[in-house]
C-alpha cells in the first residue's frame, strides 16, 4: 500500500503542456526537468508537488508528441503514479520504459478531487480513498517484465547479457 496526494486534471492532457517544446531539445538535468512539469497547464504544480503525489486525469492522458521527458519530468518531480481513464499509446510505452507507473482506471478519475489523500494497492489493483475502493487494470504480462527489470534499459541490458 502506498500513500499519495492527488493532483487532478481533465481529459486530453497533452505532452506539450506536460513538458513544453521549448525545453524538449535541451538536455536538462532531472532536477531542472522536474521544475518544468505542467508549466503551461498548472504553474503551481512544480513548486507544490511532493514525493509520492499522484496525477489523476481523464481520458487520453499524454496525447501528442512522443517526447519521453513528459513521463520523465513527472517521475523526477516525485510523482509515483498517473491514474487516468485512458492513456495515449506512446505515452503509455514511454512511462513503462522509464519506470513511471501508469494506472488505467475507469471509476477513480471522476471520484477523486485534487488534494485527496489516497492509497494505491499496486499488487491488488486497488485505489482506496476515505473508505471507497476503486480498481485499475493490471499491466499486461508482456510489459510487466520491463517494469520488474526497472525500465527498458535495464531490461535490454539483461537481454543482451543472455546468450
Amino acid at each position, binding site marked *: 500500500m502506498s500513500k499519495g496526494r492527488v493532483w487532478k486534471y481533465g481529459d486530453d492532457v*497533452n505532452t506539450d503542456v506536460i513538458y513544453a517544446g521549448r525545453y524538449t*531539445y535541451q*538536455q536538462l538535468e532531472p532536477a531542472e526537468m522536474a521544475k518544468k512539469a505542467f508549466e503551461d497547464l498548472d504553474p503551481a504544480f512544480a513548486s507544490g508537488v511532493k514525493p509520492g503525489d499522484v496525477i489523476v486525469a481523464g481520458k487520453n492522458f499524454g496525447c501528442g508528441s512522443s517526447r519521453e521527458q513528459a513521463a520523465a519530468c513527472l517521475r523526477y518531480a516525485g510523482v509515483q503514479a498517473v491514474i487516468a481513464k485512458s492513456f495515449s499509446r*506512446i505515452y503509455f*510505452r514511454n512511462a513503462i520504459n522509464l519506470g513511471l507507473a501508469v494506472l488505467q482506471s475507469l471509476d477513480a478519475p471522476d471520484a477523486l478531487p485534487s488534494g485527496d489523500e489516497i492509497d494505491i494497492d499496486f499488487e491488488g489493483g486497488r485505489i482506496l480513498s476515505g473508505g471507497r475502493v476503486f480498481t485499475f487494470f493490471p499491466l499486461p504480462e508482456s510489459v510487466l517484465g520491463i517494469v520488474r527489470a526497472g525500465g527498458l534499459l535495464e531490461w*535490454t541490458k539483461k537481454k*543482451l547479457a543472455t546468450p
Partner: protein
Amino acid sequence: MKQTFSEKILSRKAGRSVRAGEVITASPDFYLSHDNSSAIIGEFKKLGLAKVKAPGKIVIILDHIVPASEEKYAQNHKTIREFVRAQGLPHFFDIQHGVCHQVLSESGFALPGRLIMGSDSHTTTYGAYGAFAAGIGRTEMASIWATDEIWLRVPETLRIEFRGAFPRGVFAKDAILKVIGDNGADRANYEAVEFAGPASSSFSLASRMVLANMAAEMGAKNGYFAPDDLTLDWARAHGRGGFEPVSSDPGAAYEAVLDCDLSVLEPQIACPHTVDNVKPVREVEGKPFHQALLGTCTNGRFEDLEVAARILTGRTVHPGIRLLVLPASRAVYLEAMKAGLLEILSEAGGVILNPGCGPCLGAHEGLLAPGEVVVGTSNRNFKGRMGGRDSEIYLASPATVAASALEGKIADPRKYL
C-alpha cells in the same frame, strides 16, 4: 484466416500468424530519429555497447532546430555527426534536407509492406506508402539500436471509407479534420487506421501523407493506405531496395467502419486548444489573427504551395499578417522554386523559411507572443506549442491559410478558387 493489413505485416515479422491483441517481437526494416538522436545516443551509451546492431537500418535526419539557433543545439548536432561517423551509419541527412517525414519518404525508405519505427509521433506518415509505421520514445529507440528488436501489440483496425469527390476549395486536410472533429482526438487510440473506400485512390500521395500524418492526432498507432498503382509506380521508380505490398483481406475484422462522404464537405478549421475542436471555417470567419504558417510535414508539399500560390498570385497578404512559408524538404523547395511558386509567395509578402520543422513545435523560430494568434497548416494546436502560453493556434488547409492571410482574418478559400 482473414487478416487486416496490420495483422498480416506483423505476422510476417513475427514468423507466425497473429491476431489483433497479441504481442510480438519484431525486427523493423528501418528506424528514424532526428535531433533527438543526441539524447538517444546518451541512452545507448548507458548500455555499454561499442556498436549498434544494424547500422544500415538507422536513418537520422536533422530537422527540428535547423540550422542550430543556440550553442546547445549546435552541440547536439555535433554529437550526432560524430556518432554517425564513429558508427559508420550510411543514412544520415544533415540540416539541409528538410522535415524527417518528407525526407525519409522521398528518399525511398517508406515502401509498401515495410515496418518502420520512428522516435517522432508523426512517424505514422509513411502509411501513405503502404508501410506500417509507428512512433516510439527515445529510450525505446536506444534499445532498438542495441537489439534490432521491439515489442509491438498487434493493433485493432478502424477503417475509414471515403466516397464521393471533393467540392471546389476542399482538400485532404479538411477531410481529416472533419473525421477527427466528429470522432475525437482519442478515437483511434492504440489502433491502426485504414484509409479506404472508393475515393481513397483518388488522393495524391502528398494528400495521403496529410491523412496518415494526422492519424497520430486521433491517437492511432499507425495510419495506412493500401498500395495501388500510384504507390507501386512510385515505389518502383524511387524505392530503395525491394518491397512486398501488403493489403487487408476482404472480410477482415475491423473494430469499426466509419463513412466519410467527401462531396458534402466544406472547409474545416481546428480551433484552440485541441485538434478535435473542429468547426466549419464559415463559423469562425472574420476572426483576426497575426501569423500565417504555410507548410510543415503535414502540408508543405508542392500541391500545398501550389494552391496557396494560386490564391496569392498578383496579390499581397494583409499588412497585419506575417506569412511564414515552410517547404517540407529541399526537394519540394527546389521544385517550387523552379515552378515559380516561391517567387509568387515571396512577392505576396511571404517569408520563405528553410525546410525543417520551423515554428511548428515552438522551439526556435517564428514564435508567438502572448495573446497572438496563428492560422497554420500544421498538425497540432496544443496550448503554448508555438510560443506564449496565451497564444492561440488554428489549423486548416493551405487554401484556407492563404485566403486568411490575404484578408487578415480567417476566411473561406472557396471564393478564390
